[in-house]
């Protein structure tokens, strides 16, 4: 195949709810495209596990945690597949994968349909403007109903979902699909369903197929005047249908729906045809970077080989042979043996080895096409870094990284674990921007923080398995913050005379709260010093002094945010003033004004969506209310009710278990960080008492 024909490249993701079968589908795709020679099931009896689940833990749990990139070829097209995790606690992985994708296959379970996690993932796809096609899987399962699921795509996700196929039989009689474009019955025969066989439509389905085809044409004719005319003149061609569909998919106004059962080897090849036909090539998508030489003005990067190279490192993995960096090349060509610059660190790195990944195996290549997804070997960088050649200085726009909301102390059980823990944490932090690790200065404890209980649990588990590092964990801690609620003036003099040269610095000004709006800075320091009342060289020391106080608020010891300090007066001494003296003055001023500025404790509020059968909506509402939650609203559809609410994170521990018992396991929920809000009075009081009982007064 023409490897450099970019119009035949597809960078796609496979995204969906945890149990809709995406790993099984990916496995089948790799099998049919000749990348693997045997099929292993996710929780298979052969103990090999599906190829895309590259980590042992994933194999054991039967879920996909880290996204592995792999490529394959189908019908003269090159397809790069990013397998994305489905659980909400790992959404950064999904989000990062979506950033580098041009299109996606949204898999839905033919029985369970659109579930709350499908909604989260779909919202993320909308955010990154990823065109989608849908695949309704598991039609061999009892209770499968693709029409209902298609309707849910319309009602719950507001997709213009249109069935391009009809099922021939359902549940254990599911035999194949009717292609509504060619009006042929398609069966998947031979070993592992490899042979795609076209036959006439079964006689009892001819009428239904004609009706469904008309519905389909009606919907897609909106995207092509030519097709609309052709329909009226009864001269519709397959080409016209494909073109109109592609237009609709690229503008994100149409979601064609395909059917099958990956497990039973049905429907996968036709889905691959649809990927090639309807999902965009890198040419079809406009990507922007920011120009670092021009005040971060946005510039368009184009997948042209003659332009300077721009590549984004979107995923790091530590393998047996060192760090593997997955990159999307947005512009130019990445060549083996050349040098590139990391635009964050400005460090030059050499492209020693360039590989194309197939799950855990790799293939060396000399150069990447523009628009391709490849991996670099042994390049020191962090996830989200941009590489360019020396002629330009740009960075791909920053990715949306949510704040960490929960933390856990980890303590190695023995010396060996202690040695390995640093290595493990270092790697996880580089790989996952939502995972953080720090050592508490006072207690000496190592604290890890992230997006949810499960997120941290998985890393603790990975430490054990991959690094042989056993740790004891503390109780999960909510990441509270502190802020002030009142604007107050301050005037503080730091004076010390203990023999030798003394210390002197006076600072005065106003401290005020910064309203909590989107993009509001956490801290702002403004110097309005005129006439040198504080010498210019000491002003950075004043700012530094204040910043040192922000790590630990005086209410409960959590970081302080939303504060603007304006320094407008001060005094220095020709002998006794120094940077140290002004730093100390700032710290003293902070201690003095903090209490007067009416500090409050902020708690992380999560956006929680609970979904379940309507008969449980009372229980679902109550479960939210009992947790100090605010119900935003409820949507009722087809016997299901979905409640959107905002609940303090501290109240969400153990919610999964409670919800299960309240709803006989029939409801599920998803959760993501929404914002910080002041905690109610009694909660503040309790937190303060708890803190004061632990920490001696340091005044």
């Amino acid at each position, binding site marked *: 195949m023409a490897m450099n024909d970019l119009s035949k490249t597809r960078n796609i993701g496979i995204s969906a709810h945890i149990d809709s079968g995406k790993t099984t589908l990916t496995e089948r795709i790799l099998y049919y495209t000749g990348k693997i020679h045997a099929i292993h099931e996710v929780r298979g009896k052969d103990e090999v596990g599906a190829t895309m689940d590259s980590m042992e833990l994933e194999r054991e749990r039967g879920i996909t945690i880290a996204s592995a990139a792999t490529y394959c070829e189908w019908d003269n097209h090159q397809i790069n597949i990013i397998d994305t995790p489905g659980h909400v606690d790992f959404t950064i992985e999904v989000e990062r994968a979506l950033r580098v994708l041009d299109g996606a296959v949204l898999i839905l379970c033919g029985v369970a349909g659109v579930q709350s996690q499908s909604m989260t993932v779909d919202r993320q796809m909308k955010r990154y403007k990823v065109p989608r096609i849908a695949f309704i899987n598991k039609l061999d399962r009892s209770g499968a109903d693709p029409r209902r699921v298609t309707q849910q795509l319309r009602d719950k996700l*507001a997709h213009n979902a249109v069935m391009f196929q009809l099922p021939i039989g359902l549940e254990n009689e599911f035999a194949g699909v009717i292609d509504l474009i060619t009006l042929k019955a398609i069966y998947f025969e031979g070993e592992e369903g490899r042979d795609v066989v076209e036959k006439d439509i079964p006689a009892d389905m001819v009428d239904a197929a004609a009706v469904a085809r008309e519905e389909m044409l009606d919907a897609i004719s909106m995207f092509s005047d030519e097709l609309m005319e052709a329909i009226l003149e009864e001269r519709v061609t397959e080409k016209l249908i494909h073109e109109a569909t592609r237009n609709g998919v690229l503008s994100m106004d149409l979601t064609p729906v395909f059917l099958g059962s990956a497990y039973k080897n049905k429907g996968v090849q036709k889905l691959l045809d649809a990927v090639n036909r309807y999902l965009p090539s890198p040419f079809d998508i406009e990507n922007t970077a920011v120009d670092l030489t021009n005040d971060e003005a946005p510039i368009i990067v184009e997948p042209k080989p003659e332009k300077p190279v721009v590549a984004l490192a979107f995923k790091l993995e530590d393998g047996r042979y060192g760090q593997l960096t997955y990159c999307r090349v947005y512009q130019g060509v990445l060549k083996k043996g050349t040098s590139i610059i990391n635009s964050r660190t400005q460090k030059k790195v050499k492209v020693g080895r360039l590989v194309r990944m197939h799950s855990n195996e790799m293939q060396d290549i000399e150069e990447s096409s523009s628009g391709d997804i490849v991996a670099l070997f042994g390049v020191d960088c962090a996830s989200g870094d941009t590489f360019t050649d020396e002629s330009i200085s740009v960075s791909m726009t920053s990715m949306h990284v949510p704040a960490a909301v929960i933390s856990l102390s980890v303590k190695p059980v023995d010396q060996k674990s202690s040695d390995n823990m640093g290595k493990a944490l270092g790697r996880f932090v580089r790989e996952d921007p939502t995972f953080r690790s720090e050592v508490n200065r006072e207690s000496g404890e190592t604290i890890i923080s992230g997006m949810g209980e499960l997120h941290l649990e998985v890393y603790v588990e990975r430490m054990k398995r991959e690094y042989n590092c056993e740790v004891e964990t503390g109780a999960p801690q909510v990441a509270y913050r502190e802020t002030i609620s009142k604007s107050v003036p301050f005037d503080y003099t730091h004076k010390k005379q203990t023999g030798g040269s003394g210390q002197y610095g006076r600072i005065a000004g106003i401290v005020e709260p910064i309203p909590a709006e989107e993009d509001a800075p956490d801290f702002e320091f403004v110097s309005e010093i005129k006439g040198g009342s504080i010498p210019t060289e000491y002003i950075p020391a004043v700012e530094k002094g204040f910043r040192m106080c922000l790590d630990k608020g005086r209410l409960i010891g959590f970081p302080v945010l939303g504060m603007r300090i304006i320094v407008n007066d001060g005094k220095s001494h020709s002998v006794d003033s120094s940077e140290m003296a002004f730093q100390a003055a700032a710290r003293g001023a902070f201690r003095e004004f903090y209490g007067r500025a009416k500090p409050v404790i902020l708690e992380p509020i999560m956006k929680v969506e609970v979904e379940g059968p309507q008969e449980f909506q*009372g229980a679902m509402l*109550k479960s939210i209310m009992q947790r100090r939650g*605010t119900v*935003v*609203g*409820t949507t009722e*559809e087809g016997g299901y009710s979905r409640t959107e609410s905002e609940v303090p994170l501290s109240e969400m521990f153990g919610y999964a278990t409670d919800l299960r018992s309240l709803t006989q396991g029939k409801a599920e929920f998803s959760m993501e960080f929404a914002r910080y809000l002041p905690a109610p009075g009694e909660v503040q009081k309790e937190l303060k008492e708890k803190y004061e009982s632990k920490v001696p007064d340091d005044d």
Partner: protein
Amino acid sequence: MYRKFVNARSPLRLLEKGLNGGLGIGNIGVLVAGHGVGKTPFLVGVALDELLRQGTVLHVALDQTVSHVRAHYDTVYEELASSTHLDDAAATHTEVDQHRSIRAYAPSGFSAAKLRDAVKVESEAGSKPSLILIEGLEEISREDLLDVGALATELAAEVWLSFATSGEQVTGIPEEVKALDDIVSVVLALEPGDGSVVLRALKDHDNPDLSELHVALDPKTLLLVRN
């Protein structure tokens, strides 16, 4: 400004005066306007007035998603809080949110029985509504509307419905509303006027003389204002 002053100065007090005491509990009011004229901001304005007076609101949306309606509330609240310099605006916002529930249904999936179910669930969870808003109704049967009226009486609540007309100007009470005239107490029209969107009474209980309402919707801020 303190909340009680915001309440006292609300243009809604003017509306109540114009309607000889307002809609009244147990009654149904109808708002008619063209598409995009401002039915949702008007109803949100009415709801926020009720919420700031410690009421509880159930907002039923048949043609919008929960997050869409919520966004309307947030926008109008922020405008209201900043234009009135409302004291303790952030805490009040949280409180307002806690007493408002939005329910979204597919238009075909809504009925008076559904509303009863929703009210029951909300009441059991501690939010018995004192004001119910129903937006996006295309049609409602006489029986259903009678039942909505009965529910309003049981709850001692007021109910506002909104109906869309085809043009921007409202020529009179639409036919589908006229047929239910005996069940509906108040009909208001919202129409684009000179630089603002003006409110006009088409029916005021049994009062044959319709007075001027002196209330408008500012199309820029989406706030209800004196006119």
